């Protein structure tokens, strides 16, 4: 349709037409437009077309082309039906079951074992490390590890999902997992060998890293990168130029390792040479006479027998430590016993905290005498000092809560609110209490995550205390009523914390109360933390802004121009 320039200037522009049909023009202008459209068929058609367009848009958008997704429907069910009591029931039953299991099976077993001469042994240690109760503990630990890793991965997905697109989040997660596996390999290629017996033969030289999975795993040749061992019996006879990371029942290092050893085993024996450090979690560690570690040895162990040579420090969390070899620098031990034989030699200070004093042979060569501190196992309820300390502790908790709540008022309030979701808090609390340390330990062992692992442990440890503050605040609210303001909440927290602390000092059940409080609070913090990662929306405006100057007229009705 062609128009002369004169005609075109006479026509209404589209903006005016739109504002007219939307009733956004002032009265005078509206009348002008109305009058114009009486005479101008072209503009009438445009108005009609714009209105049809509005209708088409509304219709297209209103059509229910998709049902409500099941995820949202389930969310609805959750919103409608409070499942708290079911969770409570489940946890109650589980607790009863555990108690029955303990009194019916574990306690009699413990008594029998004590009668059989196993008295004094830590039961959990006995169960886990010696497999006395059930040989399947190793598998259970593996399962727990997997669960813990999955939990962490789930939390990570939930976190990233809120930040970036879903596809990207998944891609990132996969990339992350791949990175965890491949990061230590840097630019080197990696190789994987699986089977009943996976080995690197003596004439072989592996250019990059190698992953060995098998019942019997053996490295006889040379590996120019890192070695990852997963097996029942693992042996390193050859030369590893990188690190050795091992998960095995027994790991024996007879060859030469230029890097570090990080292991999670039942028995670790070192007869060869390790140039750098060793970090290990085991039941038994033997550094034999021929064995040599250039760096330090950090070990979580039941029995450590050190006959060989250690270049730097020894840090032990364990039961029985025997030093017959040479320790280049100091020793720091927390455990049950320390023996230094006549051939023992220690080049630095020895700090030992344990049940019994160290047995040191007079002919042992020590740079300084052993500093011994007796481990306190039991509280002395009869001493007044104990109660003074309890008061100090309670005050410290209140102070800690005061500082945290002042620093993070919103988060603390959210956490207290979350703690009212009893079931979810308890469930998540158990998961976080067990899962985070396991995942952190795994992260520490697998080189790449040392910093992440230690940070996670640190935060987790801090949360154990914060959890008690949160539960304290809730208990305070029960007694003194709800509040949404900070200072009244702090007051309630102080009262609640004192009550919680009092409950935790009750003999026998106090420990259980404390555990329950920690689990509960930890879960509440986790829920609040999860919610904190949700995106914050722009505040929803004041209700006053809803006033409309003119009623919207998007679906025709109102003034018909033609």
């Amino acid at each position, binding site marked *: 349709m062609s128009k002369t320039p004169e005609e075109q200037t006479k026509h209404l522009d589209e903006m005016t037409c739109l504002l007219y049909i939307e009733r956004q023009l002032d009265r005078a202008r509206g009348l002008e437009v109305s009058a114009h459209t009486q005479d101008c068929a072209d503009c009438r058609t445009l108005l009609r077309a714009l209105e049809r367009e509005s209708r088409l848009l509304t219709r297209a*958008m209103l*059509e229910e082309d998709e049902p409500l997704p099941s995820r949202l429907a389930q969310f609805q069910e959750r919103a409608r*039906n409070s499942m708290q009591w079911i969770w409570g029931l489940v946890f109650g039953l589980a607790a009863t079951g555990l108690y029955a299991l303990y009194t019916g099976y574990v306690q009699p077993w413990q008594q029998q074992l004590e009668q059989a001469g196993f008295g004094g042994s830590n039961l959990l240690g006995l169960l886990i490390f010696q497999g006395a109760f059930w040989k399947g503990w190793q598998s259970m630990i593996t399962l727990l590890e997997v669960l813990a890793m999955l939990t962490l991965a789930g939390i990570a997905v939930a976190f990233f999902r809120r930040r970036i697109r879903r596809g990207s989040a998944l891609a990132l997660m996969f990339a992350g997992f791949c990175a965890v596996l491949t990061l230590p390999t840097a630019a080197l290629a990696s190789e994987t060998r699986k089977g009943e017996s996976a080995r690197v033969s003596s004439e072989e030289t592996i250019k990059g890293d190698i992953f060995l999975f098998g019942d019997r795993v053996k490295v006889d040749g040379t590996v120019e990168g890192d070695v990852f061992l997963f097996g029942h019996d693992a042996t390193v006879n050859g030369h590893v130029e990188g690190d050795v990371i091992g998960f095995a029942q027994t790991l024996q290092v007879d060859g030469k390792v230029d890097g570090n050893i990080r292991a999670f085993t039942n028995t670790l024996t070192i007869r060869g040479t390790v140039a750098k450090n060793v970090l290990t979690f085991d039941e038994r560690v033997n550094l034999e006479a021929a064995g040599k570690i250039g760096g330090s040895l950090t070990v979580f162990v039941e029995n450590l027998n050190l006959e060989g040579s250690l270049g730097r420090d020894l840090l032990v969390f364990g039961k029985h430590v025997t030093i017959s070899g040479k320790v280049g620098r100091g020793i720091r031990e927390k455990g049950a016993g320390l023996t230094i034989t006549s051939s023992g030699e220690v080049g630095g200070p020895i700090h030992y905290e344990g049940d019994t004093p160290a047995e040191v042979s007079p002919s042992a060569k020590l740079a300084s005498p052993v500093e011994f501190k007796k481990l306190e196992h039991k509280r002395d309820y009869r001493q007044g000092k104990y109660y003074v300390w309890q008061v100090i502790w309670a005050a410290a908790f209140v102070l800690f809560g005061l500082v945290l709540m002042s620093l993070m008022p919103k988060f603390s309030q959210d956490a207290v609110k979350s703690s009212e979701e009893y079931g979810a808090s308890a469930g998540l609390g158990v998961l976080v209490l067990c899962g985070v340390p396991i995942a952190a330990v795994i992260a520490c062992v697998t080189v790449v995550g040392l910093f992440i692992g230690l940070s996670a442990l640190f935060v987790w440890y801090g949360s154990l205390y914060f959890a008690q503050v949160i539960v304290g605040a809730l208990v305070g609210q029960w007694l003194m009523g709800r509040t949404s303001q900070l200072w009244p909440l702090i007051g309630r927290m102080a009262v609640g914390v004192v009550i919680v602390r009092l409950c935790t000092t009750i003999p026998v059940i106090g420990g259980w109360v404390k555990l329950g409080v920690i689990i509960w609070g930890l879960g509440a913090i986790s829920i609040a933390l999860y919610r904190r990662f949700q995106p914050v929306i*722009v505040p*929803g405006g004041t209700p006053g802004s*809803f*006033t409309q100057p003119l009623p919207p007229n998007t679906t025709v009705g109102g003034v018909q121009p033609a």
Partner: protein
Amino acid sequence: MEPLRPGRMSAPGITEPTEAITRAKAGDAEAWGQLYHDYAPAIFRFCRRALPTREDAEDATMEVFMKLRGKLNQYDSTRSFTAWLYKVAANHCWDTLRRRKSRQDKETGDLENVPLEHPDPSQLERLIEQRSSEEVRKALAKLGARARMALVMRYYSDMSYDEIADALGVRRAFVGVVLLRARHELRQALEGSSALAAGGAS
């Protein structure tokens, strides 16, 4: 309860869920569930139209309701609940889109230039007559974030120019421009030609 018609829920004759809101404010989970049941489909569809993917819309719906749960005490019961709900949803969706920086820069620069063209009305009519709702929805999905958001707020949830201006962070006087440009973009997406959108959606 019959599903409520979104965008028209606040129309006269539709009763506001006053009782359910009062109970939900007092912490009644059942009342909250009822509100969710009645309003979630409409909010989901709002988010579905405004956001690029179905997953985004699902997430946004849940987040809007979680946010509402915390904000319910701030709701002034003398006002329309639906309008308030849509305002929260619109703010949430727009915030999500803005965070992703998916808005094109061109969208901010064009507002000062008010389009004054007079397109060929019969051609526009033909274009509209030929298109189905499904085609319009597909075309909507191709629009820029602000254009889509503006159209959804106006033609789905019936929000006023003031509310749209407030949500998008533009002056009220420019809401018409945003809407007209959005229509131009839509026509372009529908048609694939720029004849009807000339000078509009550049």
